[in-house]
């Protein structure tokens, strides 16, 4: 993981982007494991980004501290939303999050005094004065924490709670688990991660805008990555992020107007042909060979 340090700015930049998407993908998957699906990743990403940028600019907050604020802001938004919408069947929550990104965008656009309105806001300087190596270390650290949280969820009481939510709501209920509480908890944690990643992104580019920050890329790519790699595990989203993340920049250059088509097609095809993803497929192969 340390190799990009010696490999020039372009590779470091690509690696940073991959790590950004890796965190988003993994956090999205953690929520999927509770049986809830969110189409609002870009929304929490954007909340984090705006909160960090605005606190750094207006309160002269240290960039790293402002990133933490970004995470907290996203978490607070998720708590409010989760407490109101996570009680019903997944479909209601999913569709609410589908509109979320657009809603946040509308709010940002309509508060020009605070957010800079449609034009966005520019920060005086990027984090670490734009040093790509330090930025890479920052994202690597965030990614490692995200991986640790994902593994913790897989190994503790939370895992038991969320898998029983997924497999059988009745069993979970009768065993006295407050599944609603767990779902809200996981939603808050994963949204905080998305907010932190968004905040780092804003600090890295020293710029936030309604269109660029609440970009559907930040919802679409993580989902495609998880599906390709395989949902319901830590490994799957990582594999997916490495594969799709390394071609994402290239695709964007080659197909500036249609690169998202690839991700839509990936999502559709994986659901139809290979619902367990690459990681699941490999596991299956492995079990068969044993």
């Amino acid at each position, binding site marked *: 993981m340390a190799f990009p340090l010696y490999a020039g700015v372009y590779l470091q930049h690509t690696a940073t982007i991959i790590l950004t998407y890796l965190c988003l993908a993994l956090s999205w998957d953690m929520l*999927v494991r509770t*049986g809830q*699906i969110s*189409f609002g990743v870009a929304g929490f990403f954007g909340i984090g980004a705006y909160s960090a940028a605005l606190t750094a600019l207006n309160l002269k907050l240290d960039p790293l501290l402002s990133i933490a604020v970004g995470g907290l802001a996203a978490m607070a938004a998720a708590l409010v939303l989760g407490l*109101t*919408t996570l*009680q*019903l*069947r*997944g*479909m*209601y929550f*999913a*569709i*609410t999050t*589908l*509109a979320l990104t*657009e*809603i946040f965008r*509308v*709010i940002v*656009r*309509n508060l020009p005094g605070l957010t800079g309105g449609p034009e966005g806001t520019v920060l005086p300087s990027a984090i670490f004065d734009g040093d790509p190596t330090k930025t890479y270390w920052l994202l690597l650290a965030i990614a490692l924490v995200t991986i640790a949280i994902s593994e913790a969820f897989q190994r503790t009481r939370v895992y038991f709670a969320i898998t029983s939510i997924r497999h059988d709501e009745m069993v979970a209920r009768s065993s006295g688990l407050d599944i609603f509480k767990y779902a809200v908890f996981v939603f808050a944690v994963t949204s905080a991660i998305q907010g932190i990643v968004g905040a780092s992104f804003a600090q890295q580019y020293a710029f936030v805008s309604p269109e660029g920050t609440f970009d559907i890329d930040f919802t*679409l790519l993580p*989902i495609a990555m998880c*599906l390709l790699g395989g949902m319901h595990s830590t490994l799957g989203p990582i594999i997916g992020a490495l594969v799709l993340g390394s071609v994402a920049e290239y695709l964007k250059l080659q197909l500036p*107007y*249609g690169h*998202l*088509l690839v*991700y*839509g*097609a*990936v*999502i*559709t*095809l994986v*659901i*139809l042909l290979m*619902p367990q993803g690459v990681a699941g497929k490999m596991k299956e192969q492995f079990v068969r060979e044993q």
Partner: protein
Amino acid sequence: MSALPRSRRYQIAVPLALFIVVLAWWHPYAVIEGVQRAGLYAAIALPMALILGIVGIVNLAHGDFLMLGAYLAYWFAVHTQGDPLVAILPAALGLFLLGAVVYRATIKHVIGSSELSQLLLTFGLAIVLQQTATLLWTSQPVSINTEYTSTSATIGSLTFGTYGFVYVAAAVIEFAGLTFFLQRTRLGQAASASGQNPVGARIVGINVDRVYLIVFSISLALAGAVGVLFLTRHAVFPLVGGGLTFKSFCLAAMAGLGNLRGILWCSLILGLAESLVSTSKEYAGWADLIFFVAIVAVILVQSHRRQVT
């Protein structure tokens, strides 16, 4: 397809009528605009509610099929120099056939699997449609100007555009047609039965898979036709459908999944609310939040109701 009991219908209808009368007196333009919007929203939401009620699937690509219908009409109008409305039947037919293909190739395979797979599949389809449209027609909005869309009427000191009422007509025709189909035709009754209990439907000899295919295709055909109407009054661009999908779902959820009549009422309420906000000078930009607030309220009410029972 459940309808509200008569008493509850009046509980909603009477206050709503009073509200509209008061509003019309205070702010007539908002009412006219609101009713026209309500027509548009109902026309768009009805076909989505049809799939939701019978096939039991949320079609997250619903608005994007409408977008496709609108582009078909645009393409037709540009190439023939003709009236885009002439494209209604071809667009409906084209989307009906596309619906059959999409159902066979994709939707059919997630019937009976988890809701998660269904949501992800139709989300993927939505992205594919949006991005294909971007590749074909770029992200620039297109629109068609025809003379009849600017017809207006004057009542007293009030002058307003009348063409927007075409959506109200469309919604009423759609509702009447769907109600007739579901209650009076054998295929429609097979569809109702499949929606209420697919296992029960199979054992009484209904080919549920074929019913689903036809219902899905009908829904897409209607979305395509409404898309053509949409083009005559709105700018169309590849991402225009996303918001319409969301609004359709809000209406379907608010009306109670599968309740077509309720969609008319709920469209009226939200259409009026939205136009009231958007015709006010200071708060116009916030009108987009109305549906979001509505869906959150619906979810709160429903989870409360579930806890009570």
